[in-house]
């Protein structure tokens, strides 16, 4: 477990911004202030300010009195949070298990990853070098538990590598290093317990009785007696393959070639467990710390490396201008975010059947245009036309899309004709009817007048009365609809309806109104 602490995070952020904008400024001691309770206090201070004897938590007025020439900046918690997130993203190059330790630290689970860098020391050296280049002060510690690593980073010697001797090195540290709430620490200090060593061997039950269960839990976690789970920021992918480059790559062909190589490695792992990938993500780490994540979904569990390459070729083609390799990518990771069991025969380029061809077409189009744009109809168990017309992304697979049951129902019942094209939202029309509940004689839609020659109907469709009336969702609300199929003089055939019934009309409510809903071929 690696704990990274950026002790001057807020001030470093401001310095970096100013350096980037190359604002000429005198190097005054920099302090960040914010309101806590009713007082303006110092939240963060830089090195120069610390040397002047200032400290975080001091009142701003007092600091000003001591040193009139201070560079005072108000705090910006949101910018701090965003920067921490992007540093966390960037740390994904070391391990997929990264957690934010707000407000100014990160936790990395590097077990099993350090050897990729040649060992823990080398990993820490690499991390440190990059942080220094980026202009951050930092402290790093590695220990076998989160608690111990955190304590060492914040209060111990920096660059600690404790493996198994947590007890010895925790003992001299102050109790605050256990991540306890300040009131608990204060009350412990009041009874003379100052360091972790002071409580390590005390009888447990009196401690719990007096200071609460939290104290011993934190101690146990730091010592590894109790497991503390790390909550990674991103879901952990079941299959991951990655590759580091000594010479950064920038060309699209190289990226795709890497994808194929990584995919081949994933394919082996997927096959061993009988899985196929439903969602794959490519993470590209740029040399300057930025990273790109590109995800692609598939309609069927996929295992073939060439198919995966083809998917990402489509995705890259759509973002060609955005890929922006800068000075190149020095690492690539391909992760399967969602895997599903896949029978062997569904997989591979060689399959000759049309279903496979269709699936590949859907995957390619979805990768290029977006999964939401490639759709197919599903049979919905609803009599309300808008709901019955629902389409789903074609990549979504279902055991039963309802067509079997629908076709059975259809062959048994005579269904009223339905229009070829349905307007997504029924459009209000002005209509004149002979009798209130009858079909219209003529109507005006999109500024054109239509005289009706023949009409069929009504087909009465009850509104979804069990739902709240929602005028936003449908301009006709949940009122009962009487649908008519009409043909005008020139042969245009329409599907229109009257929302509401005249017999239900009560004073004060909206009178029935007419809507255009679709056109027949």
């Amino acid at each position, binding site marked *: 477990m690696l704990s990274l602490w950026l002790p001057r995070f807020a001030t470093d952020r401001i310095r970096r911004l100013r350096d980037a904008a190359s604002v000429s400024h005198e190097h005054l001691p920099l302090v960040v202030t914010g309101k806590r309770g009713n007082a303006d206090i110092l939240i963060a201070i830089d090195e120069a300010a610390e040397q002047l004897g200032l400290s975080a938590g001091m009142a701003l007025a007092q600091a000003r009195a001591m040193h009139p020439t201070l560079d005072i900046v108000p705090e910006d918690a949101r910018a701090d949070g965003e920067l921490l997130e992007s540093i966390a993203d960037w740390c994904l190059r070391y391990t997929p298990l990264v957690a934010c330790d707000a407000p100014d630290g990160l936790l990395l689970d590097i077990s099993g990853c350090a050897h990729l860098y040649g060992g823990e020391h080398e990993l820490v050296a690499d991390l440190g070098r990059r942080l220094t280049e980026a202009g951050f002060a930092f402290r790093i510690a590695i220990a076998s538990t989160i608690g111990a690593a955190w304590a060492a980073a914040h209060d111990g010697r920096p660059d600690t590598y404790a493996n198994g001797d947590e007890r010895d090195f925790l003992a001299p540290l102050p109790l605050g290093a256990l991540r306890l709430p300040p009131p608990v620490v204060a009350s412990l200090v009041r009874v003379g317990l100052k360091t972790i060593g002071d409580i390590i061997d005390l009888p447990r039950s009196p401690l719990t009785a007096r200071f609460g269960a939290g104290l011993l839990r934190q101690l146990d976690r730091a010592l590894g007696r109790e497991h503390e789970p790390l909550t990674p920021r991103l879901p952990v992918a079941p299959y991951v393959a990655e590759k580091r480059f000594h010479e950064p790559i920038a060309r699209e062909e190289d990226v795709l070639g890497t994808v194929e190589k990584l995919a081949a490695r994933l394919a082996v792992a997927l096959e061993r467990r009988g899985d196929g990938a439903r969602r794959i993500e490519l993470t590209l780490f740029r040399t300057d710390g930025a990273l790109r994540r590109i995800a692609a979904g598939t309609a069927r569990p996929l295992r073939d490396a060439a198919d995966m390459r083809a998917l990402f070729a489509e995705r890259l083609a759509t973002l060609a201008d955005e890929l922006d390799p800068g000075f190149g990518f020095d690492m690539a990771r391909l992760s399967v975010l969602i895997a599903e069991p896949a029978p062997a025969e569904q997989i591979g380029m060689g399959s000759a059947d049309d279903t496979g061809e269709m699936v590949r077409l859907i995957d390619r189009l979805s990768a290029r245009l977006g999964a939401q744009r490639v759709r*197919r109809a599903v049979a919905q168990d609803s009599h309300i036309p808008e709901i019955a017309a629902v389409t789903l992304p074609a990549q979504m697979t279902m055991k039963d899309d309802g067509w079997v049951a629908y076709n059975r129902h259809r062959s048994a019942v005579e269904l009223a004709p339905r229009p070829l094209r349905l307007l997504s939202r029924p459009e209000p029309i002005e209509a004149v009817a002979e009798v209130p509940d009858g079909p219209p004689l003529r109507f005006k839609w999109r500024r054109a007048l239509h005289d009706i020659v023949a009409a069929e109907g009504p087909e009465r469709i009850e509104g979804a009365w069990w739902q709240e009336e929602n005028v936003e969702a449908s301009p006709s609300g949940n009122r009962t609809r009487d649908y008519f199929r009409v043909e005008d003089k020139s042969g245009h055939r329409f599907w229109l309806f009257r929302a509401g019934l005249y017999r239900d009309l009560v004073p004060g409510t909206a009178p029935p109104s007419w809507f255009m809903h679709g056109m027949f071929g």
Partner: protein
Amino acid sequence: MRDALRQQLIYLQKPASLAEELAALPLGVSAVDNALGGGLLCGAMHEITAASEAHLPAATGFTLGLAALANGNKHLVWIAEDMALTESGVPYSAGYEAFGLPPERFIIVAVAHRHELMTAMEEALRCRAVGAVLGEVRNGSLDAVAVRRLSLAASDSGTLAFLLRAKPSHDASTAATRWTVQTAPSVIPGQREFGGPRFAVHLTRNRRGPSASWILEWRNPDDRFVLATHAEPLAAPLRHRPYQKVA
């Protein structure tokens, strides 16, 4: 080297629609099939234009009827721009079923730009599992090169390609046929009963025969076109045009 280039040139010059080996899809109406030289050419692009925007549903119906004749058990891919779907309505599964197209074999693709429409059509045309591709263009002109690529893609795979246009246009096209479709009254004058969907179709461009006009009716249970009987024929008589010879 030069020979290879020449070969390539011949290949590029060959009008896709005139290739000998391509199959024809009979409409089942002898008058139409004769004019088309046996039927609608598979592996070619056909342009179907609504006489005006109001006639777009009819043009849609006619196109879907043609696609249904071809479909077999393959898929139909309908690609349209977002604007077209918002303005003219989305394909409704219960509706196109009446044209004999099973909804489960129907893929609808919405695209944001014209060039995406073209590339998606080309991609779909090259897929073996697809029987017909329908691209809907609301207005504006088409990139001639992209249209040509579509024709070539269609002839390579033998898939039917339809360009459905909401307004007539006069841009040059490599389409094998171009149709202008109007809706025709299905109701017999004096009666108040609906017949099947009727289309007044004008074959305005035909690479393998004369141009002509008919009124066709789609018969639902047997899923085929018939010549409309009770309606008056359109005023325009058959106009013969000599077969176009391509050097």
